[in-house]
């Protein structure tokens, strides 16, 4: 058990005892990463904002369901996943009921309106992966969960979680290689034009992911 996890468990216990400060601390530590996870699941940042609040509200309503034996991060991520799935199911039912109303959005396929400009190659490649692979890959490599923790969140075996993540990584590697080849071909055809669409920060992310993908 890591020190951070132990602290989070202690905070959860204090929160169950009625401490508002403990809740604020838990929120401060977990909300940013949970929001990114929800944003990945919903593929929409506005919906992710709503789901984030819904997740913490549900956590509050069912705070008694937490037991100190569980690690807090997977518990909250799992809860966020449940909240997303339940909302998506409800939205689908609602959409089915009102099929004739064209303005109803399909939550799962809405583009991330505020991120269109900065959507980079990695995100595109990950988005092109099968959703179950992308989710396992991100939970493992982006948020650092163990395969056992992923299995508990998703409802699969640890071996299946490992297989999904490694299949996702293999597919990502192929997609990134293809993308790099295409970029190299483009820059070759445009003379000395450097692929200037990569900012230093994005370049570093791409390098890191490529390194992981090639490992």
């Amino acid at each position, binding site marked *: 058990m890591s020190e951070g996890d132990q602290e989070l468990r202690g905070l959860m*216990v204090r929160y*169950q*005892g*009625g*401490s*508002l400060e403990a*809740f*604020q601390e838990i*929120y*401060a*530590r977990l*909300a*940013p990463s949970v*929001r990114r996870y929800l944003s990945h699941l919903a593929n929409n*940042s*506005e919906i992710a*904002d*709503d789901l984030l*609040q*819904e997740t*913490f*509200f*549900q956590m*509050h*309503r*069912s*705070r*008694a*369901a*937490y*037991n*100190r*034996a*569980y*690690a807090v991060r*997977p*518990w*909250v*991520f*799992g*809860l966020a*996943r*449940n909240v997303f*799935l*339940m*909302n998506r199911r*409800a939205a689908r039912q609602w959409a089915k009921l009102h099929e004739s109303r064209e303005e109803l959005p399909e939550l799962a396929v809405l583009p991330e309106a*505020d991120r269109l400009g900065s959507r980079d190659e990695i995100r595109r490649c990950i988005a092109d992966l099968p959703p179950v692979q992308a989710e396992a890959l991100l939970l493992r490599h982006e948020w650092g969960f163990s395969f056992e*923790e992923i*299995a*508990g*969140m*998703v*409802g*699969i*075996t640890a071996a*299946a979680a490992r297989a999904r993540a490694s299949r996702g990584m293999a597919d990502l590697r192929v997609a990134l290689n293809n993308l790099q080849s295409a970029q190299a071909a483009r820059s070759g055809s445009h003379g000395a034009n450097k692929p200037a669409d990569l900012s230093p920060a994005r370049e570093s992310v791409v390098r890191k992911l490529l390194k992981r993908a090639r490992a």
Partner: protein
Amino acid sequence: MIEHSPKPPEALMRAIARDLRPVKPSPQPLRLALRMAPVALLVSSVILLAIGPRHDSALLGPVLTWGASAAQFALAIALVWIAAHEGMPAGRLPVRIVYFAAIAASLVVVFVALLTFSISPASEPLLRVPPWINEKLRTSPWIMGFGCGVGSTIAGGLLVLLFSRIFRNSLAARPTVAGALYGAGAGLAINAGWRVACPVSTPWHSLGAHGAAIVATVILGALIGRFLGNRRLHMGDALSWPR
């Protein structure tokens, strides 16, 4: 869109500050399931205490009379344990285990019913009641079927209500499945007691009346789970999260 600061938004803070009473952490799934076992055992034994064990229990032997019921009861507790896991955000069991348990439960009920019939094909409803009632039940066997079906559905329904009260704060992603699982657990637990008391072992009675009661408790559990899940889903609606 809200600002992405790690500070909780006002609406959320208000909702949380409204109810900050201390709560008791819930036990882990196995302990939770085992805690329900005595109550389930009590409810499933009521019929046995009321009319006593079946008249052919000596012929069936202790393994098929009590052992088969004990196995069904253990399976019922296992189903409740799986339902408890289903309600844990980070503790879900693989879907394969859920399906396996549901299929195993169905097969055990059918297998025990057929085995009991093959060893003691009792079709006469011989109960420890006045002779005229036995005569009436003999001439109209549907009354016995109806009685067993309705009786075990009511007993199972009571257990489902108890389980759903305990699982009311469950955080299941599939609340209908979680409800169906504890409904199946309740139905199976009741059948474990009921089959030891019921004097009729014909397959149509065992599967038609007792089996139908299990199906009824599964449906009841699924409906309650769905209702609780929907209620949980719409709890946040009233707060209208600010963007």
